[in-house]
């Protein structure tokens, strides 16, 4: 009789393993609680710049308030969100992190305020531990806000700057931040990552224009920041502030390029030489004729410094590629060793 064998189905064992992995890596990710809005502190550094406050909603906006008009406008905007909350509830829980017995708001200021508008004093929230770093916190705020079209470019840039500073502070890494870093951290496309990178490193004129909300388009801002010459930048910036579309800005570049063609060609040639990582080793390449290696080896072994290594090569089959490769590697290693010792 054949020997008895038993095995679990591989589907089951695999499913068990996956369950464990998934549980470990997603622990706490669905933790949602209902918390009192009164216990939430709004983060003054949140990128969203609402001027309307909790008190304005609970007690009414004072006519003497210097921001009266803006607050009234914001209140009207909140009203429409409030109506939707009234009808459908909060679809996405707000995000807070716990500080003792209070919470600090990471994302969801408008949802909180709108809930107050309709008289809800509790709200659904995802709660993170209090040990959340500034970096993680800013990243969460970014992720939460990025999809919203009404966020101004200056708000986005100021939040990104906060993330970069937090990253440098946390890691002690003062190196320049690359587009790859943005792509990784905030999960945007390569194009946008590259745009943000350029705009973040823009000079003061462009920076000021963004801060004053004169430039509110990422593509345009990035295009201007990437221009090689200051005079081109100034021209393009002015065109941008005048409301010219991106196509027209590109024309400015085309005109100027004609004029400065010679300079540009030169700079490209120079760049080509620099392309790639700096070489730090010699590549030995490969040959198809084993005799070349045999000859090289013999030549070197004739040198009296190396002749004592001859015994390493007596068993080599000089017609076999892998044997010859091995022999040559040995030769290089022996020479290397000799140089280290010397």
């Amino acid at each position: 009789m054949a020997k008895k064998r038993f095995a679990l189905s591989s589907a089951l064992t695999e499913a068990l393993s996956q369950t464990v992995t998934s549980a470990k890596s997603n622990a706490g990710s669905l933790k949602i609680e209902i918390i009192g809005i009164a216990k939430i502190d709004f983060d003054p550094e949140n990128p969203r710049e609402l001027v309307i406050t909790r008190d304005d909603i609970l007690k009414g906006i004072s006519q003497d308030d210097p921001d009266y008009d803006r607050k009234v406008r914001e209140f009207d905007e909140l009203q429409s969100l409030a109506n939707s909350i009234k009808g459908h509830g909060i679809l996405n829980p707000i995000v807070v992190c716990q500080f003792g017995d209070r919470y600090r708001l990471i994302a969801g200021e408008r949802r909180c305020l709108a809930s107050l508008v309709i008289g809800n004093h509790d709200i659904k929230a995802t709660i993170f531990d209090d040990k959340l770093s500034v970096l993680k916190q800013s990243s969460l705020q970014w992720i939460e806000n990025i999809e919203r079209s009404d966020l101004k470019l200056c708000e986005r840039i100021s939040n990104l700057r906060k993330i970069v500073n937090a990253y440098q502070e946390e890691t002690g890494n003062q190196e320049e931040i690359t587009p790859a870093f943005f792509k990784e951290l905030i999960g945007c496309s390569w194009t946008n990552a590259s745009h943000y990178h350029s705009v973040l490193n823009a000079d003061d004129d462009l920076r000021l224009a963004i801060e004053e909300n004169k430039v509110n388009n990422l593509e345009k801002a990035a295009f201007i920041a990437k221009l090689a010459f200051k005079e081109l930048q100034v021209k393009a910036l002015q065109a941008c502030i005048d409301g010219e579309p991106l196509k027209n800005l590109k024309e400015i570049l085309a005109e100027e390029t004609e004029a400065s063609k010679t300079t540009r060609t030169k700079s490209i040639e120079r760049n080509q030489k620099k392309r790639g990582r700096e070489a730090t080793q010699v590549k030995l390449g490969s040959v198809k004729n084993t005799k070349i290696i045999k000859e090289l080896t013999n030549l070197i072994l004739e040198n009296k410094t190396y002749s004592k290594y001859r015994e390493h090569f007596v068993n080599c089959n000089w017609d076999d590629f892998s044997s010859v490769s091995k022999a040559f590697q040995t030769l290089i290693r022996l020479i290397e060793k000799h140089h280290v010792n010397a």
Partner: protein
Amino acid sequence: MTKVIISATNKGGDGKTTLSIIFSEYLSIIRNQKVLLIDFDPQANASSRHLELEYDPTSDGGKKPPIHPDYDPVNDKGWDGRTSIADIFYGKEMIPYSTNISNLDVAPAYSAQLQAAEETKREEVIEKIQNRLKEFVNLKEIQESYDYIIIDTPPAKGPLTRAAFSAATHVIIPAQMEKFSMDGIYGMMQLWKQETYSRGTSNPITLLGIIPNRFRNLVLHKAHFNELKSQKGISEFVTDHKLHERAIYSEILSNKQLPQNIFELPSSNIAREETEKLCDFLYGRMVNNG
């Protein structure tokens, strides 16, 4: 904080009740801890280990707890003298019964009432049931009275088992090394995973161990055991300590038998030895992992 250990698997006969009984007695007798054994299984077997349950004519083969020794018919108006863990679903006070073991109390089952909770289909009721046990074990009086709570669960994945998962700090899954039991492990691991998703890291539900039970020296049992042990991810949870198939485990659970529990056997007894080793291991894991 009181540790809440549940013994769970959706397959019947794998040893949930046996393990609940053994581990609660180990903690109270060997470790001298204050323990509450909660019987959350409508079959009420863990309860009948310590109490003389009465057959309940209103439910088929169901049982109800006896009159509580503290019941005073003159002064306790509005109480029929019985109390069970099902009372937490009816907004009533639950008063644990003491047992012959000094550190061990029991919150017995009331078959018909637990069965009603288990069979409910209404979503909003299920939600309430799920949270009620958690609220109960977190009551100040309970937390102050007990170091450990052991919960025996029904062989199902219904509202009662889910409620037990919500309340638990630790889970043990007994399993025979056979095909249907493996599916039971899988079912419980899903509940454990769901519960882990919805908890914060400060309040985890720890999988204390998958315990090979009723183990026999068969090619089948050894093959399944070795396979689980070789599977990355799952192997760390499968305990090396097994409980073998032995008549003594059934005998000792019969009423009026001597010795009354496994820990009264001489320490050289093979059943006591393997039981105590397993319990030592689980206890150590629990104490070390917080």
